[in-house]
């Protein structure tokens, strides 16, 4: 098992769906509609959950038949798959991540809505129970590859902000005499504050016009 790649963590859960809702659509149809209609990028409910690098939701409906001579087989349950790449140096950080997901995703209302079609979730009413439920449904990673960095998300976003701003600065201040260059750089450093938390990029920012948090 290797859910970790240094401080990055690969979280995967498969939560079985109820077999019926008593309504005119199956649970997986309701769930798929709900997930498909979620707003994207900075408006995604997951943008509010700290240390989410990337994550995805999909409905695992069944298995793919490989053709003869392979055996034809089907799943007996359908599953909500949640797969996330997060910053979590220790296992305890994963529990904390899930607590914050319960509390913050979509302003706090997202998790109960998304998981309402899952079997056994009716008894989940608080963050600790959500952690317990998710841990029960967790699938261990066999091999994890990190082709990026394992820094806290806030550091990654600050770095992206600095890269963008410093690239512009370098482009706009070519050929200046030393004293003018030094003055301009000091003003730049005072503005972007490389060691401070802000200014930085907003999680999920999809447009340069609205990306910066001052």
């Amino acid at each position: 098992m290797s859910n970790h790649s240094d401080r990055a963590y690969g979280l995967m859960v498969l939560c079985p769906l109820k077999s019926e809702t008593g309504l005119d659509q199956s649970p997986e149809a309701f769930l798929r509609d709900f997930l498909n209609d979620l707003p994207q990028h900075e408006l995604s409910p997951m943008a509010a959950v700290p240390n989410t690098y990337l994550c995805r939701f999909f409905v695992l409906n069944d298995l793919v038949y490989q053709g003869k001579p392979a055996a034809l087989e089907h799943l007996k349950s359908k599953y909500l798959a949640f797969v996330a790449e997060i910053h979590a140096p220790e296992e305890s950080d994963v529990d904390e991540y899930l607590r914050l997901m319960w509390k913050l995703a979509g302003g706090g209302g997202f998790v109960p809505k998304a998981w309402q079609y899952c079997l056994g979730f009716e008894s989940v009413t608080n963050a600790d129970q959500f952690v317990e439920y998710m841990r029960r449904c967790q699938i261990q990673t066999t091999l994890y590859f990190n082709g990026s960095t394992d820094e806290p998300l806030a550091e990654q976003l600050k770095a992206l902000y600095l890269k963008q701003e410093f690239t512009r600065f370098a482009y706009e201040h070519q050929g200046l005499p030393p004293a003018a260059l030094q003055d301009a750089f000091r003003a730049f450093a005072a503005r972007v504050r490389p060691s401070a938390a802000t200014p930085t990029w907003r999680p999920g920012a999809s447009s340069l016009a609205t990306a910066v948090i001052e």
Partner: protein
Amino acid sequence: MSNIAGKAYAMNLVTPLTELTADFNKVVFFGLKIPLFKDKLKGLLTLSMIHYARWSIVRPSEFPRVSAAQPVEELNYNYMFFFSNFNGSWAQYVDSFSAAIPDGLNSLWHDNIGWPKAVPQQPFHRYVNDNQLWTNHYYSAYPMAASNDVKAAKQVKEELREFIEDTLQDEPDQFSRKYHALLKRLQDSLSCMAETPIVSLAHQAVVEQCRVDEGIV
């Protein structure tokens, strides 16, 4: 439904393998984590468009069961779940894998049922296409950034912080020399990010339309 979040593409592949193959492949995967064999993963590092990727081999008994009311999964095969977050189009990614690390792919998917080998590309494409599951909601914390941007940004941040400390007391001439040395060191890492180009979108639109036409979605 979207496999795309800005510059990132989410791929989900689920493929069957026998229990014997699963046990063997788990040993291979474990070996790849040992420093002696870690070089085998270096091919993946050359594919710098990958943010994160992972493989999970799941036995039938490991499918989560949360209540007695839930039927037990009775499956002949184990299943390997592969998840990747990458930049670029589906075709660019799949072709890059096939061209750069065909032996690595053949090891990672060793003896999966129906695995056609990474080369030639046409059967390989078909295998990936047939076994790919589509994502219903995909989120990236930095949709305007490629994986290379995230890595480059880390270097820019660290160098900038060090440079500011190092030049606090410098006279303008000395500052200027160090500044231009900084630019030289960072020349591979400086570039502006933006909303475009998102090369996957055009391809995605075509694939989605094909799936609609075929009645798949």
